[in-house]
């Protein structure tokens, strides 16, 4: 896999489960939310993991690279500083916007899949890349609504983003599942259309069905259907890494270990 070392199976480090992450067997790498870390005051638990040689990858949620506005370089600079503080090989954020018209949505909003939005995203990503010390990977988000006039499929949109910026992709299979349920995206077609050789790693997360809507909560168990999307992805490419995200309603260590084992089983099934 060109340029990305094998990361294995990992979990999102959160302060609420710091001890769990430290003692769980089979945590090959972790992600930290960049906005929650302060340079010069890394949490003790993150330092401990670094001392053990566990790769720590900063994941950002606030660059708002899909915003019509110029990128806020202070946010990019912070992300870069976190990457340097933890010696990360790569950083990531999302293909989304969170700020517009002076308001903050508080959550990752999908961008319209139009030429305008793609041109702006490409310009923003290039500016961010020029100001980051390591490569940038971008993640597909879960959408609850569709912009009315998409000109490209989500896979085509991301493929063109990669072609024009040379960024990496962080594919969230739970978001693919959510979009299949909620807005009718076809995960197979998505996987056919994206350049899999630019896959940095994969996210897996749990969620919950409420009526006719699937909510990507990161606070419930991972559905078997989400692991099926992971299985489909692994049948096409060996992902350099797969990471479980759990952000709330934390279960026992045993349950988390079970979810990591289930992820590893899917990945290993395709490695012969």
């Amino acid at each position, binding site marked *: 896999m060109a340029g990305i070392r094998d990361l294995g199976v990992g979990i999102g480090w959160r302060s609420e489960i710091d001890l769990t992450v430290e003692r769980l067997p089979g945590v090959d790498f972790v992600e930290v939310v960049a906005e929650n870390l302060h340079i010069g005051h890394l949490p003790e638990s993150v330092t401990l993991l670094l001392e053990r040689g566990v790769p720590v990858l900063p994941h950002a949620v606030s660059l708002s690279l899909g*915003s*019509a*506005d110029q990128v806020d370089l202070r946010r990019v600079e912070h992300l870069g500083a976190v990457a340097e503080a933890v010696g990360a090989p790569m950083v990531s954020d999302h293909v989304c*916007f969170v*700020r*517009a*018209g*002076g*308001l*903050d*949505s*508080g*959550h990752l*909003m999908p*961008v*319209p899949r*139009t*030429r*305008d*939005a793609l*041109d*702006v995203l*490409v*310009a923003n990503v290039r500016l961010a890349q020029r100001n980051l010390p390591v490569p940038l990977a971008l993640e597909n988000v879960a959408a*609850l*609504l*569709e*912009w*009315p*006039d998409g000109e490209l499929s989500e896979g085509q949109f991301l493929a063109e983003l990669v*072609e*024009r*910026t*040379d960024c990496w992709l962080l594919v969230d299979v739970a978001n693919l599942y959510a979009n299949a349920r909620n807005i009718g995206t076809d995960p197979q077609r998505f996987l056919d259309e994206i350049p899999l050789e630019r896959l940095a790693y994969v996210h897996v997360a749990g969620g919950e069905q409420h009526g006719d*809507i699937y*909510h990507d909560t990161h606070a419930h168990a991972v559905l078997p259907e989400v692991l099926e999307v992971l299985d489909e992805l692994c049948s096409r490419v060996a992902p350099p890494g797969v990471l479980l995200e759990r952000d*709330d309603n934390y279960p026992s260590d045993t349950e988390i270990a079970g979810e990591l084992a289930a992820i590893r089983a899917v990945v290993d099934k395709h490695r012969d």
Partner: protein
Amino acid sequence: MTEIVNESSLSSARERLAARQAELLNALLANGPAPTGFDEQRLGVERRALLSKRRGIVRMLGPEVADELGDRFRLLFDAYAAEYPRRAGSRAREDAAAFEEWCRACGELSEKRKARWKFWQSN
């Protein structure tokens, strides 16, 4: 790397996108009119999801306030949120502090806990 989009066409693209994104967030966060072409029912789903996420964060950052308000927390928070959508650049902690102030001004919270917030905000 392929073509570079020229600056003036990029700046027009930014303007068009800015208007559309602002219109959507205004509808979702500030009771603005529904933008053309969106499914109204889905706008409602998204509006509730964003409100629920914001409410959950404020509850997590100020559990004592949520506890004191009890059953009134949700209703009060939703009224506060409709009146004060989160501004770009604001922090979640500021949102939690502003909600507490708002409740206090409405007479929904007792006065004595104010000093603790000052301590909290100074961090």
